[in-house]
């Protein structure tokens, strides 16, 4: 399930809260307004009806056979009110049109006949209507049918206004939520920015505790963490520097002394010469191991990219190893934006690996296509078994599976360094089967175009 982001949730929460609040307020005010308007209207209607009924009663009482229609016509009812008279089971109205009588509900008539004045709201012809029944005498009931269309219109307008207000309030709530979330998120954004700065190497990035007093704990623990982290990095760095220094100094003595021995080999007896040879070889290997370890320890640093003639680099790597330069095939732009030292080591290590385990490199292909630099080194050896492919770039993996590949040369770090250098460029190192036998080591380096 995808969880909505914190910001989205804050905004939605504010909007929902504002909507609920404004809807409740709107509903309540609608009800109050409606109630009071209706009540007022009703009492006005009732008062008018009683007044009219009194007029009619006076007319009926004054004469023995009153002209009821004339009496009704004499009433001043205005436009909205219509007066009806029910006498001895017969309806009388101001005009001949007695259609209005249908608006008078039977229940009301029943009640009125039993001598009780009453009021009822009904819908007549689709419009809300108020019917007031006033019994005048036995079998004589005066009705007044009062249209509430105007009031209904007013209430409808009120509904629209209140709905609009509710929506606007919800939107305002969402806006407030957006602002609040931004405001609340700001320190988090600062923390994220600082963390990112640290990740990219700015070890002096810290949060200002004065800026967000409410986040004091976060700020202080973040800063403490960064202090601890950079102290540890500094310790590691110094340790690596010390170790490399302490290892390199005696190696210098060993290397120079071994060269004296090697030079005098002809003057030594056979056993001593063999022993001297072993010492010299192992010193050379140890030297390489120390260099490789130092390289690996530092390979997590960012690549120092600059324009590099990679084909020239490959050719000189071949020259150094006595390989023909003709195995280098370059396609596309000759200048790659890569770390010269690292790519030089990648090429050298891949060539050395091919020599040690693959019977020598037969081709180096360099292609630069759409920013992706690709280095491929082919050999014609036995290839790499599927189970070795997964771990061949790990440290100290040296042809474990096949005895044929288990030489004593090399440090077992060459391909690990290749992988690390590829990673420093944001790329990858892989091993494939070469069509026609042998292994193909491939290093992809994205962003190799300036």
């Amino acid at each position, binding site marked *: 399930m995808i969880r909505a982001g914190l910001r989205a949730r804050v905004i939605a929460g504010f909007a929902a809260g504002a909507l609920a609040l404004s809807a409740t307020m709107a509903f309540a005010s609608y009800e109050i307004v409606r109630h009071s308007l209706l009540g007022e209207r009703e009492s006005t209607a009732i008062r008018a009806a009683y007044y009219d009924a009194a007029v009619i009663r006076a007319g009926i009482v004054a004469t023995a056979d009153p002209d009821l229609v004339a009496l009704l016509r004499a009433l001043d009812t205005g436009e909205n009110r219509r007066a009806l008279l029910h006498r001895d089971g017969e309806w009388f109205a101001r005009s001949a049109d007695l259609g209005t009588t249908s608006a008078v509900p039977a229940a009301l008539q029943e009640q009125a006949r039993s001598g009780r004045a009453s009021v009822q709201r009904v819908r007549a012809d689709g419009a809300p209507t108020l019917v007031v029944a006033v019994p005048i005498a036995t079998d004589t009931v005066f009705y007044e049918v009062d249209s509430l269309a105007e009031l209904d219109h007013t209430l409808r307008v009120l509904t629209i206004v209140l709905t609009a207000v509710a929506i606007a309030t919800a939107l305002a709530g969402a806006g407030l939520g957006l602002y609040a979330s931004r405001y609340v998120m700001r320190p988090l954004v600062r923390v994220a920015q600082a963390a990112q700065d640290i990740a990219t190497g700015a070890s002096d990035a810290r949060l200002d505790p004065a800026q967000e007093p409410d986040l004091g704990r976060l700020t202080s623990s973040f800063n403490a963490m960064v202090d601890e982290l950079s102290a540890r990095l500094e310790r590691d760095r110094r340790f690596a520097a010390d170790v490399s220094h302490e290892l390199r*100094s005696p190696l210098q003595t060993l290397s120079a002394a071994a*060269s004296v021995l090697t030079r005098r080999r002809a003057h030594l007896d056979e056993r001593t010469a063999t022993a001297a040879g072993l010492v010299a070889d192992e010193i050379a290997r140890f030297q390489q191991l120390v260099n490789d370890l*130092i390289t690996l320890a530092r390979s997590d640093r960012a690549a120092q990219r600059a324009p590099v003639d990679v084909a020239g680099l490959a050719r000189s790597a071949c020259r150094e190893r006595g390989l023909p330069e003709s195995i280098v095939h370059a396609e596309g732009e000759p200048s790659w934006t890569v770390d010269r030292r690292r790519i030089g080591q990648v090429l050298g290590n891949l060539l050395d690996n091919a020599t040690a385990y693959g019977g020598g490199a037969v081709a180096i292909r360099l292609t630069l296509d759409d920013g992706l630099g690709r280095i491929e080194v082919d050999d014609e050896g036995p290839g790499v078994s599927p189970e070795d492919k997964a771990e061949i770039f790990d440290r100290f993996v040296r042809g474990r599976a096949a005895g044929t590949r288990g030489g004593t040369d090399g440090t077992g770090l060459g391909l690990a360094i290749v992988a690390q250098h590829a990673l420093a460029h944001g790329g990858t190192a892989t091993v494939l089967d070469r069509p026609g036998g042998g292994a193909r080591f491939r290093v992809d380096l994205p962003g190799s175009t300036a």
Partner: protein
Amino acid sequence: MTVPPIRPPALAAPLPTSHDEVVSAVLVIEDDDRIRLSLVLALEDEGYAVSGVPTAEEGLELQRRSPADTVLVDLMLPGIDGFECIRQMRRTDDVPIVVISARDDTHDIVAALEAGADDYLVKPVAVKELTARLRALRRRARAVTPEAVPVLRFGELEILPEAGEVRRRGEPVAVTRTEFQLLCELADHPGRVLSRQQLLQRVWEYDGGDERLVDVHVGRLRQKIEDDSAAPQHLVTVRGLGYKLQR
């Protein structure tokens, strides 16, 4: 740590050298007795006349009395350190100076080169590599006459390849041999860009060397031959390509 007393030349009779070269004198300034002794032994075997001293003070004194052809110097020395030793030696001497240090931080490398070193090697250096470097430096020190051109002019700058001299508005400029060689390579191709790798190849005889060597040497040269080294008029950088010398 106690280091056994060292009795140098008595126990090490150098092998006769196969080179027909004039014996070249090398001064090794290295405080670690074992490293110094092993370097002295190995270089003597390679046919060099080597003197080793443990401090910068002794090294500076010895170089004043009997100048060597090349100086190898460690950076971490008791008393005057390697950087200061190079600076002091450079005031009076254009001898090729090679740093041999176990430190390989960019900061150290650049600082040593800026102090005036010609090359920087990180320990452990194979003797073969070291002698290759020494030979390259000697060739450079000798072969400063690329062509029989009497004088090359670049504005107010005059380069006299045969005399090994640089003059600015008629005044001689003190440059080291490496700086002079670098200037001559660039002057040989006026207005043409030479890449850092090309310059490393031609001046230092490096195949795929450290480009900081070129950058720092160019910086040092600019301070000597330009009016404003931050806005060079003659020795200009061509971004992404290299350097060129122009009129």
